């Protein structure tokens, strides 16, 4: 600062000298001043110079505000941390509390706030002894996986058509898909339940009585349909961004259009496919309405995890600690999936797959 001193700098130094002697106790401003020469610093200094009287009234908050105006990055950073902490708290605290409930021994569930009333990790084992909870988990896993596969295959074909082909009625059809996704699923329930309880001759070799009720089909079919539009929109966006030249090259090299979709377009859209797949899997795994009503709740009849958790609720007592433990166990597959898929998504993005 001394090297390229201008008259302004000298004046500023003089003011600073006086200022520091008047406000010798305000040490925290001094480091900001000694680095000198910065335009932001100059600006904030001139504020001080102009309003030296007002400065005397300023509390820490007002100083922070004045600082933020000259240096908005601070404010953005503060907002970021506030939002992040709020989000993490609202997301993670229920899990913490669930864990506390699960660890509390039976019958002492009152007044759990931050610590469990006792310590009983045995409830995580008891879960499997009281009910065949693994069977419910297996059912849910099968239903979610099957739905995800159905959704990804069909939505890939739809996404290819919407994203890469020009045909009359493309936009109205996409709007129709969007409209279907806005329908309340409950509106479909009664006709679907009726349909799934109807006996069909062709199904008799597969299901004992020829109906879809009490089979995975009763959940995979409606849930796939409900979560299909979202996947179609995600995949349409990704597939439309693959350069035409790559598809043309694949076709000249010897694939059909469908072959080009599976050999070139889908591998290059891996992040989009992973996103659509993970979202569908989680949505189906978490689904309540159809999962609750399309089976009779027996694990051998493909009842999903939800029925398992509700199974710890008897006529006279509710085993809250087991419900909590089961809930935590039920979350684990999804958590693993997200962690694995996240790596996939990140690797897909950083590989520069779309660069050409």
């Amino acid at each position, binding site marked *: 600062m001394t090297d390229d001193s201008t008259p302004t700098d000298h004046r500023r130094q003089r003011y600073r000298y006086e200022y520091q002697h008047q406000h010798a106790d305000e040490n925290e401003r001094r480091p900001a001043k000694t680095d000198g020469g910065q335009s932001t610093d100059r600006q904030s200094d001139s504020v001080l110079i102009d309003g030296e009287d007002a400065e005397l009234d300023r509390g820490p908050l007002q100083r922070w505000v004045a600082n933020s105006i000259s240096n908005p990055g601070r404010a953005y950073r503060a907002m970021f941390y506030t939002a992040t902490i709020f989000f993490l708290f609202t997301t993670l605290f229920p899990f913490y509390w669930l864990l506390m409930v699960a660890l509390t021994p039976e019958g002492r569930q009152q007044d759990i706030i931050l610590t469990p009333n006792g310590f009983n990790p045995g409830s995580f084992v008891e879960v499997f002894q009281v009910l065949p909870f693994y069977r419910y988990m297996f059912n849910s896993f099968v239903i979610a996986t099957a739905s995800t596969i159905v959704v990804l295959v069909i939505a890939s074909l739809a996404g290819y058509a919407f994203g890469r082909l020009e045909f009359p009625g493309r936009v109205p059809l996409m709007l129709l898909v969007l409209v279907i996704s806005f329908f309340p699923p409950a509106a479909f329930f009664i006709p679907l339940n009726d349909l799934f309880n109807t006996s069909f001759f062709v199904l008799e070799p597969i299901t004992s009585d020829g109906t879809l009720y009490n089979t995975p089909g009763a959940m995979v079919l409606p849930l796939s349909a409900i979560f299909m539009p979202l996947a179609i929109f995600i995949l349409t966006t990704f597939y439309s961004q693959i*350069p035409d*030249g*790559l598809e*043309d*090259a*694949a*076709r*000249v*090299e*010897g*694939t*059909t259009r469908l*072959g080009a979709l599976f050999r*070139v377009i889908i*591998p*290059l859209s891996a992040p989009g496919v992973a996103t659509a797949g993970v979202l569908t899997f989680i949505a189906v795994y978490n689904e309540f309405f159809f999962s609750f009503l399309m089976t009779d709740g027996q694990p051998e009849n493909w009842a999903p995890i939800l029925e398992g958790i509700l199974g710890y609720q008897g006529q006279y007592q509710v085993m809250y600690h087991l419900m909590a433990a089961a809930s935590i166990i039920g979350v684990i597959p999804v958590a693993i999936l997200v962690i694995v898929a996240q790596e996939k998504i990140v690797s897909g993005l950083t*590989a*520069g*797959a*779309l*660069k*050409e």
Partner: protein
Amino acid sequence: MARVQLEHVTKRYEEVIAVDDISMEIEDGEFVTFVGPSGCGKSTTMETVAGLTKPTEGQVYIGEKDVTTLAPKDRGVAMVFQNIALFPHMNVFENISFGLRLRKYDDEEVSRRVEQAADIVQLEGMLDRMPDEMSGGQRQRVAIARAIVRNPDVFLMDEPLANLDAKLRVHMRTELQRLHRELGTTIIYVTHDQAEAMTMSNRIAVLNEGRLQQFAPPLECYNQPANRFVAGFIGSPSMNFIEGELTEAGFQSDNVDVELEPEQVPGVGVGDGVTLGVRPEDVHIVETADAISEQTARINVETDVIEPMGDEIFVYLLLSETAGHSMDQDPASAPDQLLMSVTPDTEIRAGTAVDVVLDRSNLHLFETATGDALRHSLTDRSEPDTGTAPTEADS
């Protein structure tokens, strides 16, 4: 290896006609270039050969087979794309062998042929690299290797050099010619760069607005352009055009007159509008024009801008004193300007008056209304040779 034949191929989009009734026959082993300004339909024409675009009307034959409705994979063609289009998720080996693996060749055969192809394009030792680890020229070679590894009947190249820098482009140009000599495959090459077209091809197909303008060897397109468009498109800098009228005395315009008998110009009569075309190298300063046996009358001009290129000097000549210096007009086509190319040892200064003559043996006459060529040499002894300019290659 095969010949390629297009019969009345037309591609119509909703409002536009991209390709308008193109017919041509490409011989086995020939190197043919489609050239034209952007949007002239040259890429679309090639895509109908590749099978990526289905023609609205007309037939495409490869060899003796009608392939009009065949999928691209069943046509025996290979293509190199303008944006190279290597599969970014596969390494070089996988890229080159993609087509072979799809056709279920056994592993040994695949690696033998990939190595052979990589050898031809000098890519040894790079087979396990990923495309994004390679330079533009290397990627282009991978794309070419991917095309040649299948021994296609026809090679299609859609502006393969457009994305390369100038030096690499010249280098790849010679490599492609060497490749053509080694493989002897029929090659169809699309470019908007007339220099590429002139240097590489056996025959050039000049296209404009979806129509085939001329299909002839490069020098024939240069020396005997079928019409005014071809004359202006082939050659750099492009031909000067002077619009005028055919009179009893010959060609007359505001500033340039050329004596000739009206009967020497077939197809038009006295009073019809004709355009005189002269290439910059056929404009000569009077003092240095002794070697030219048949000259036109002297034309008094003023030199305007001088562009020394090293091997030659481009001189912009103002034909009349009222000649404008408008910036928004292509100087070569400005009515009152003439572009002259002289040898670098010529002493010439801007803003001086000089006399120039035109070489009669290399003057071209076009019908102003249609743009069709009428005559390519205005010497007395030469026969009118308009008929030899082959506008229709399918004849």
